[in-house]
Every structure is written in C-alpha cells, then in structure tokens.
C-alpha cells in the first residue's frame, strides 16, 4: 500500500458540533455520510439549514448518502497553514452522485499527490478525533 498523503496529521482544527450539524460530523461513528434531506421534495441540503432551499419545506430528516463521489477539483497544498497539519496534502471538492451540485470540501487520502485526477471516483472514509468523525475521501477502486 502506498503512503497516505493526509492520513492522520498530528492536528486538525475540529468543527464546533451543534444540534444543527451533529448528524454530519458524527455520522461516521456508524460509517455513514449524513445530510439533511427534505421529506417533501427529497432535496439534499448542505450545509445544514432549517428550511429546504428548493421547496421551502420545513420538515427535514437526516439521511445517509451512498458515500461515493467524484473529484470535481483538487489542489496539492504545500504551505504550512496550521502547525501540526503538515504539507503536502490534497484538498479536493468532491461532488456526490445523489444530487448535482451537492459538494464537500475534503482531503483525498490513500492517494499519492501525483495520482489525484479530476473526475476520479472516490468514497468516504472517516477519521475520528474526539467527538467528531471527519469525512475524507479515498480512491474508489471498485467504481
């Protein structure tokens, strides 16, 4: 197996977990990439908000996405912005197949920086830290 690029940096800034985003940041405990979804029109919602931006429905439910995605774009970061999060590492925007434009900024892991490609199929993996499961993405060999 090749060396992971961003597999467990010494330090990550963690998100502030609230009642509004807990489903997203803790879904990894159950291996699930979770979003809010409108129970009326089935629109996926990200980041979390209390109203469906498509139909203005106010009844939303947490639902797991497949965890699969494609790399919409990526960058190899070489600058040390955060002590303990040492470069180089891959930052990507991935788009989920569940809905056009449903995207996450994330890290590509288990992928050499030279091997990252736009449109590459990837799948979610979670990195736990304290009370948070960070969704990262690795190449999806099965896709």
């Amino acid at each position, binding site marked *: 197996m090749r060396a992971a690029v961003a597999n467990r940096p010494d330090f990550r800034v*963690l998100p502030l*977990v609230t009642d509004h985003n807990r489903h997203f940041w803790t879904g990894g405990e159950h291996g699930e990439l979770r979003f809010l979804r409108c129970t009326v029109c089935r629109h996926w919602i990200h980041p979390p908000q209390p109203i469906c931006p498509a139909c203005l429905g106010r009844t939303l439910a947490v639902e797991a996405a497949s965890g699969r995605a494609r790399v919409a774009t990526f*960058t190899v970061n070489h600058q040390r912005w955060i002590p303990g999060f040492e470069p180089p590492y891959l930052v990507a925007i991935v788009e989920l197949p569940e809905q056009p434009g449903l995207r996450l900024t994330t890290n590509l892991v288990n992928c050499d920086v030279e091997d990252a490609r736009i449109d590459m199929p990837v799948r979610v993996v979670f990195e736990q830290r304290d009370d948070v499961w960070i969704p990262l993405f690795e190449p999806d060999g099965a896709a």
Partner: protein
Amino acid sequence: MSERGAAISGIGQSAVGRRLGRDPVDLTLDAALAAIADAGLDRRDIDGLASYPGGWFGPRGFSGPSIPELQDMLRLDLSWFAGGPEAPGQLGSVIDAIAAVACGYANHVLCYRTVWESTAQGGGGRPGIGTAGGGGGSGFRASSIMEWTLPFGAASAAVWIALFAKRHMHEYGTTREQLAQIALNARRNAGRNPKAVYRDPMTLDDYLAARMISTPFCLYDCDVPVDGATAVVVSRADRARDLRKPRLRVEAVGTALRGRPSWDQFDDLTTMAMRDAGAMLWQRTDLRPRDVDVAELYDGFSFLAMSWLEALGFCGKGESGPFVAGGTRIALDGELPLNTHGGQLSAGRLHGYGFLHEACVQLWREGGDRQVAGDPKVAVAAAGGGPLGGCLLLVRD
C-alpha cells in the same frame, strides 16, 4: 436616478509598504486628507463616510479605524454613512456611496480602506484564515464557513481559489505559463511605480522556479500583504463638475451574486461572483468592453484577474488563458493595459481599493512612468473573489 448621478472627485493614498510600523489610524488620516484635498474640498464639505469591512474587523491588520472613529477625529457632520463586510466585494462600500449621492442622501462621501497586515504579521509567515496563528491542541473549534474548510487544512483563500484555477485548467486547458502572465505583467508595471513594493524584474523562469503554495499557485500567484490606506471621494455628479479635477463619472456598476454565496457550493467551479457582477455592469451601459481603455482587475491571486477578464467580457468564457498568453495584449502598451500599477501581486495588497485608485490615476493621466499612452477616457475597476465581487466603469467626460 442611477449611478450616473455620481462621480469620483478625488483620491488619496498613504505610504504603502512592508512593515511600515505606522499606526493604521495615521495611515487612514493620510489617505483621507489627501483625497479631500485632491478633490479640492474642505472637510466641512464631506457629509458621508463609507468603508469596507468596518472598523478593526477580522484578523489583526485586516482593517483600520471605524467610521465613528474617523467621523469623530475629523468632526464631520454626516448625512449618510455605511460600513461593513457584507457587501459585493471590497468596492461594495464605494458602490454604496455612489447610490447614496445619486439618491441625494449626501453630496460628498469619503470612502476608505486601510490594511496593515504586513506589520501585523511581523517577521512571521502569512497565517491561515481563522487559525489565529494557533494550532496543536488550542481547543479552538471552527464554525460558520470555516467549519467546512479548516478541518481539512484549507485555511487560506489560496487553497480555495486554487481549486477553481485547477478546474479552469481542466475544462479549458489553461496553463501555468498563462497564469504567469498576470504576475509578470504586474511586475513589469510595478517597476514603473515608485510606490510598488516588489519592483525587481521577474522572468517566466523565476515564476516557474518559485515554491508552490497550493497547486497550481506558486508564491508569485499570491498577493503581498502590505500596510497602506486608500481613500476616494464619491460626489454627486452635479457637485463634482466644477471641482479641482475633471470629474470621473460613474457609468455603471456591477453588484450581482446569483449563485450560492459560497466558496465550494457555487454552481460553476470555473468562475465566481464576478460572473454575475460583470454581466450586470454591461447591462447598465451602452458602452462595450472594447470601449475600455484601461482595466484594473483584482489579482489577490493571479487567477482572479483571469476570471475578471472573462466575467467582464474582455474575452469569452474559458478564453482568458489564450487572451493573456505572451503578455502583449495586457501590457502597458497593449490593447487592454491591465493592472498598470502592479496590482496586488507586486504593488501590494491594498485590498480592492488600489484598483479603483489606479483607474482614477490613469484617467487623470497622473501615472507618470506607468501612464498608458493616448487619452484614456474609460476605465474599469473590479475587486473580489469567491462570493465577493463588485465592479465599476468610470468615464472621464
């Protein structure tokens, strides 16, 4: 009533440089008093104030004195004032002032922007946004937009915009050599601007040899933090007619943002808010891109100037790479002189206001060694990246 009821009547700028060690209040006063004098006005004529992003906002060094502070120091009697970060880019504050004078709320609005990021950063490197220089075990937790970026080490607009540049390269075949032309052009022009901070000649080899920040951006794709304050006086067009200098009429503005106001959820990952602001500008005037004599377009990162070229219709969508290739078209003596002062890449990160200042310098033919030839009458100034974008078209009668 429209933006044509407004004009720029004066400009001012403090000293600009790396680690000046000056009080940002002093820098602001230098710029403000210079702009008022440049317009041929007295402080008693100033009845409006506008600023971005509001007083002492954001990380240390990102902004200077508040509107109430400046009002009180100069004992101004104000009919109208506004300041804050929620605006269509850094020039949104100027565009607010344009609306205010066109509407008759005020006659002469002093608009200003102060940065002292270089002194604030001292000898250290440029910190990530929202990290407050912290790290390892500080207990800090990210919220708001940083919640979705900081956990992934995407702690700078360099990373966020690099993602767009990469997608642009993927879709349109844009190259690093083309991106480089924005930086090389800026450096060439900075060599003719005594106030620019980086004036030494730069070659394509220098550019390609520079260390990478976040691919495809190398060091020279990223602007340079400086200390400095810039001010402009926005006047009612009728009140600006008989002042010290020929008025620079506001022909059109662009402020639109039609996609999601987000760095990673915007509908098109090859452009940003400037797409909508640029389109709006041309909907508000009969002038066309070919009428523009000089373009001062935000280059906080090189790719943003490319995006503005496309957004403002100087070339087609995706065609900014070939447009700037070789650098002759955007040179001082080219068909569209771009960032004639050196931009933020080489003249320094005055954060949006520097472009408006330079557009006025050129229209008043005060550019000295960097003055474009002929008799430039139409200039565009644009600022912002990501969900921030605002632009102005100025005309000297």
